């Protein structure tokens, strides 16, 4: 198992961990019986740290990310966000956690098509009650979106849309950013630029980043790497 180094002590982890998983197990029922997608996955992510989650298709990366985001329950094990076990949260508390503490970035951007760029950027921050127009303006400037604020998502290129999605996520000041192949739909140059932004912004904000990616090149740019193989953490 590859952990971000150096490994902290248990008490240090409890005090510092932004996201921690303990022996996560997830099974799916299929026509051929239950399939174990995650088989005891554990890792810890501290504030400001970035971790790349790699593995082949079907290795359980997205499932792990969804469980960390509280979108899907684990069958066994625990996920702790800032020390809170998300399995014990009600749906409303889980939703509040996603609004205020977690930030999600998807491969398909998942912007809200009925809102313009400005409203999309501020949407999650306003939901979380962290709305700061000055911060939104600064983010838009930094992400190269200042001239596009009145446009609608379908009027933007893939790279621009992903920058809006990252801006939306960071505007809410999340403690943990969970990004599911955020550059998967982008060409290499645009993907690199977007990842630069994401890493830099997370580092500046002190947010932990869990990045699902197929690319070894992109993974190498993170502070650590977690490789999944058949649901288990394996050497990369």
């Amino acid at each position, binding site marked *: 198992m590859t952990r971000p180094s150096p490994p902290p002590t248990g008490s240090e982890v409890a005090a510092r961990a932004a996201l921690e998983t303990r022996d996560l197990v997830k099974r799916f029922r299929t026509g051929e019986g239950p399939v174990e997608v995650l088989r005891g996955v554990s890792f810890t992510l501290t504030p400001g740290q970035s971790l790349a989650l790699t593995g082949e*298709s079907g290795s359980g990366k*997205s499932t792990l990310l*969804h469980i960390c*985001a509280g*979108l*899907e*329950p684990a069958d066994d094990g625990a996920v702790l966000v800032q020390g809170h076990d998300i399995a014990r949260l009600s*749906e*409303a508390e889980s*939703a*509040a*956690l*996603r*609004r*205020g503490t977690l930030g*999600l970035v*998807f*491969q*398909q951007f*998942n*912007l*809200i*098509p*009925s*809102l313009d760029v400005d*409203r999309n950027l*501020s*949407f*999650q921050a*306003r*939901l*979380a009650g962290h709305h700061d127009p000055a911060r939104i303006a600064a983010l838009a400037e930094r992400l190269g979106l200042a001239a596009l604020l009145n446009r*609608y*998502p*379908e009027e933007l290129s893939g790279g621009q849309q992903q920058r809006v999605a990252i801006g939306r996520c960071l505007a809410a000041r999340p403690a943990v950013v969970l990004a*599911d*192949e955020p550059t*998967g739909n982008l060409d290499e140059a645009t993907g690199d630029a977007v990842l630069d932004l994401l890493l830099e912004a997370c580092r500046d904000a002190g947010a932990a980043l869990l990045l699902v990616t197929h690319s070894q090149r992109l993974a190498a740019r993170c502070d650590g790497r977690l490789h999944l193989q058949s649901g288990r953490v394996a050497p990369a």
Partner: protein
Amino acid sequence: MTAAALSALLGHWRRHPVQLAMLLAGLALATALWSGVQALNAEARAAYDRAGALLGEAELSRLEAPAGLIDPADYIALRRAGWRVSPIVEGRADLGATRVTLLGIDPLTAPAGPAATDLPEADPAAFLVPPGLGFAAPETIREVGEAPFPLIAAPEVPVGQVLVDIAIAQAHLGLGGQISRLTILPGQPRFVPPLAELVPHLQRVDPGEETDLAALTDSFHLNLTAFGLLSFAVGLFIVHAAVGLAFEQRRPVFRTLRALGLPLRRLMALLAAEMLLFGLLAGSAGLVLGYLVAGALLPDVAATLRGLYGAPVPGALAFRPEWAAAGLAMAMAGVLVAGGQSLAQLARLPILAPAQPRAWARASGRAMRLQGAGAVALALVALTLTFRGEGLVAGFVLLAALLLSAALAVPLVLAALLSLGERLARGPVAHWFWADSRQNLPRLSLALMALMLALAANIGVGTMVSSFRATFIGWLDQRLAAELYVTARTEAEGEELRAFLEPRSDAILPVWYAEATVAGRPARIYGTKDHATFRDHWPLIAEGPNPWDRLAAGEGVMINEQLARSADLWPGDAVVLPGAGRFDVAGVYSDYGNPNAQVMLGIDAFLAAFPRAPRLSHAVRMDPDEVPAMMAQLQDRLGLPATMMSDQAQAKAVSLQIFERTFVVTRALNILTLSVAALALFASLVTLSGMRMAQLAPLWALGLTRARLAALDLGRGMVLAALTAVLALPVGLALAQVLLAVINVQAFGWRLPLQLFPGDWLTLGFWALLAALAACALPALKLARSAPADLIRVFVQER
């Protein structure tokens, strides 16, 4: 290739059975309401034809007197000159417990129709000699009950008619020897003097022209057809919405099939064949439903037609292939119209066209602008017809233009209101709520247009009926002012009756009339006694100076509103009454529930002009408390049957009952149309809910709970339904005004004041919101209960 493509296309319906059910249900309901109405019309028309065929008149020419009745001297002159003609007498008369059409024939000269060949055997002497013998349908015999002559069951005779000897009919109708018309028999002698020389004042009417009954009831059937068409249109909105959404959902399949080499023409042919198959399936189901609807409504329609026009329509429905074929054709045409737009869109679409929601909405934005232009154009048509249109057809075109214009404007107005909501919203969720509602508006607009049409029709027809009812009740109080109404069976009994009542009542007001043609219209002229009952109560809507004095002096006449409007005769104008002379119109009175012209003439002038008019019916003014005792005395002393008398309350109850029955069909069609609209909304929301997951899952991921999203979705449906209901109110009131001031005037000849019933609107609004709640609840519940796995699938399917 075709089989594989078809399998891929039909796979959509296997995965979306509810959507398929909605599509078929919408089309079946639309066909049901349309074909149900057509079945009613076909049944009535067949009855009119049967009535015409009874005496073999449908194929024969006839002679009629423009003044109304033919003098017996004309008949004798024609016979002497060698013309083979047969006299017929026809008129409405009270018989036993009901009112029937008495049809008097001369059995010796009658043409060879079913009346001469198919009637049951009976003693010819009994038929000819008083009291006579009548042939009638078993249904009529049941309704008549106790009759002054024996009735023999003859199913060939149309319901509501009684066939008797001509002399018996003349006696009962008080026509003396006068004749309604003369049938010109086939096989005339070669050398007879021309009709123009013998009877220049009579008019020859050749066969093939519309029967009197068909002409008289045209407006009633046009009203029914218009409602059927409205219901069909509302149903088509469902089909259009379902087909449109299915096309959009299958766009990736189309893209793939075409990319894999399926020619566009083949794809379109397959989709057209699919729609025709649906049309056939749903149309057949709709015909069965329509037959049931028509069967349920026919008794009331028949009662209305008999009560209003004396039309002999039976209360039982027969299957007629013509309406079934027409209904099925409408279903097929409807599904092609509904799917045509989508097919045309497909034909123009590039193979790899994107299917983004905003792009779709933007494309719809272009359609919306076109729609707006259409709404304005139709509004201008409606406005022009309001001031320039004449006739019933123009009235219905005005109605259609008004409704269609309003329907087309609904999405535009809603979009503007939702934009306003977006601008005023505070908070991200509220902001998203309005923006998202606006974005999804194009997908729901057809259903909302259908809802608006149904609600406006409900408000319009409801306001018309309630206005009519309120006016009618007030009018009945004025019109039925006498405490007792009595009808004698014979002239002698009438005289005895008057002698008996004279010392026992305050006044006896004759209800005596003669049939005539006035201003080219069939009319009834009443002899009117000068009495405070008329002066104090009669509902005049226009009057010249001293109308009652002039009526009593025989200087002027009163005419009913129907005659005034149709012949444009108003106080100050003159009218010619055949046999009585020329009179000034002294006043115009309202006369609801009667489609024919009517004239009131002073009793002295009436008796001088129509000395042979029957003197059978009387209105009696007396102490209301003594009415029951008087009725008992009339029964005991004069042997008058109870069915020949009615007190004021009974008379009003009967009139109100006829009134209520007239609108049973309207109300039923109203409720059915609203149900269809609710189904349209449900169908659209259910279909949309499947596509909404992709829009809602990111919001859930961003921290909105499923319950909140479901509540917002439910709220969105309710807000749109409520806004649509508010928009339907002015449209409904405009519709009511058109019905009251244009359609009723053209169809029935009376105009009613518009009255407002806010309580009814609130009730309707409540039901509309309840219907919308029912339509929105299932998709919202589905969303609230959706498993996280379903929402996550949205993100997983991205790859």
